């Protein structure tokens, strides 16, 4: 019985099967993608199969390959965090709009029961703390609790986004605030897509409806989408907003590219943005 027969008999192959002894990358791939139902005496088998000279050589090769496999897997998994961020910011917006919608129902209903009924999520939170005295009041107060829960959920998701966005896209989260960074990544469909977008597209992300109206000839070209919520655009003099939005979106794309390709934080980006915005501001002041 040859060694290769023995392996077949055991039904299982080690990570090194079919891997060239010095091909760390292929070994790493095998470690990440392979599987086996049961372990075996891999060091011995690797030596017998000629993959390693001896145990020490096997362990050295194993170490190199596991380090490479783990480093790659960590990077990939962390990159997948941008998708989690996208889900989180969308869920946050869902909770926000659902809390508001349900708060309207609460206000309308409570208005028929309490002379001092208010409106909005704030009133629902207040009502949720109160003590119902009739079966109808029980239902309204319980509904108000749902509003409060949804608003709490939104707040917790916001904290999550504020914590995660700087980890996923440190530069983008510095230039925009973390929530805006997350929204941009969400609108683009991921950090990679955002990094590959022209600045002009980023400028109108979130203004798709207005843009389509423009393309159909119904409206003027939108100057900015969601980046309008950025203080640099809002603070710019009205006649400079287009220019501010253009500059901001250009910088945001650069930030997204650095975040996607290197992940290193570069404080210079933010300083540069501030200088450009000051210049635009003073142009408006003249």
């Amino acid at each position, binding site marked *: 019985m040859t060694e290769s027969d023995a392996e077949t008999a055991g039904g*299982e*192959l*080690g*990570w090194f099967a079919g891997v060239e002894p010095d091909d760390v990358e292929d070994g790493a791939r*095998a*470690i990440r993608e*392979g*599987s*086996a*139902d*049961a*372990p*075996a*005496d*891999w*060091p011995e088998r690797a030596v017998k199969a000629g993959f390693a000279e001896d145990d020490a050589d096997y*362990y*050295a090769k*194993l*170490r190199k390959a*596991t*380090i490479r*496999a*783990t*480093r790659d*897997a*960590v990077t990939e*998994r*962390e990159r997948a965090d941008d998708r989690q961020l996208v889900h989180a910011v969308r869920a946050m917006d869902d909770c926000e709009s659902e809390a508001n919608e349900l708060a309207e129902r609460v206000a309308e209903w409570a208005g028929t029961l309490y002379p001092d009924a208010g409106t909005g999520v704030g009133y629902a939170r207040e009502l949720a703390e109160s003590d119902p005295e009739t079966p109808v009041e029980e239902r309204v107060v319980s509904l108000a609790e749902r509003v409060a829960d949804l608003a709490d959920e939104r707040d917790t998701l916001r904290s999550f986004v504020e914590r995660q966005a700087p980890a996923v896209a440190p530069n983008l989260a510095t230039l925009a605030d973390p929530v805006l960074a997350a929204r941009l990544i969400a609108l683009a469909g991921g950090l990679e897509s955002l990094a590959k977008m022209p600045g002009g597209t980023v400028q109108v992300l979130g203004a798709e409806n207005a843009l389509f109206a423009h393309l159909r000839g119904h409206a003027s070209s939108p100057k900015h989408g969601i980046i309008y919520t950025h203080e640099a655009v809002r603070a710019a003099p009205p006649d400079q907003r287009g220019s501010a939005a253009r500059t901001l979106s250009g910088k945001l794309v650069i930030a997204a590219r650095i975040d996607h390709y290197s992940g290193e934080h570069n404080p210079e980006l933010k300083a540069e943005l501030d200088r450009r915005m000051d210049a635009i501001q003073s142009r408006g002041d003249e």
Partner: protein
Amino acid sequence: MTLPDGVERRTFGGDDRLATKGHPVYGEPTDGDWRCWDARRSKLAAMLEHGMDTGLDGGETVLYLGAASGTTVSHVADFSGPTYAVEFAPRPTRDLLDAVDARENLFPLLKDARKPETYAHVVESDVEVLVQDVATRGQARVACENARFLREDGRLLLAIKARSEDVASDPETVFERALDTLREGYEIIETRRLEPFHVDHLGVVAVPRKV
């Protein structure tokens, strides 16, 4: 109870502590080549401090599940042979890679300990010690699933965290349930609460059940 070769008691800041010899990893106090192994930061160290019969002599082949950022597994690698370190979360694994840099016998794996088939093609059979410190529900089940790696007379050194299983029940009840599950794959040699080092944790030493 004697300590494994490569683990000694030494004095740090006036206190008598466990220590191993190796490159510092997480800012722990050092004394020459020796680095302090604080039982408050490591469940395995707490088991040794309590004199549990870990069966560790030094030089063993080890599979460590739940390596986290490498605090404990770096000490284990200091006094063991080939040491496989499995961790599922990417962020702590970045730190674990730093601990690996300075240790020739430590092999990191970003894998889910609940799915041993995803690393059975890498981790060798007949390891002598299985150390497990995962903070997920079903800790005993994870230990049973990973029994396949352990040799007949090998040891399972397990820390069960009550709160990871069930925050609502009383820890003793949780431990009993976990031990019941554990008995499906192991014979339990010794159990001990890890207070005062770790609250609501149970240290367990076990050997694979004879088939």
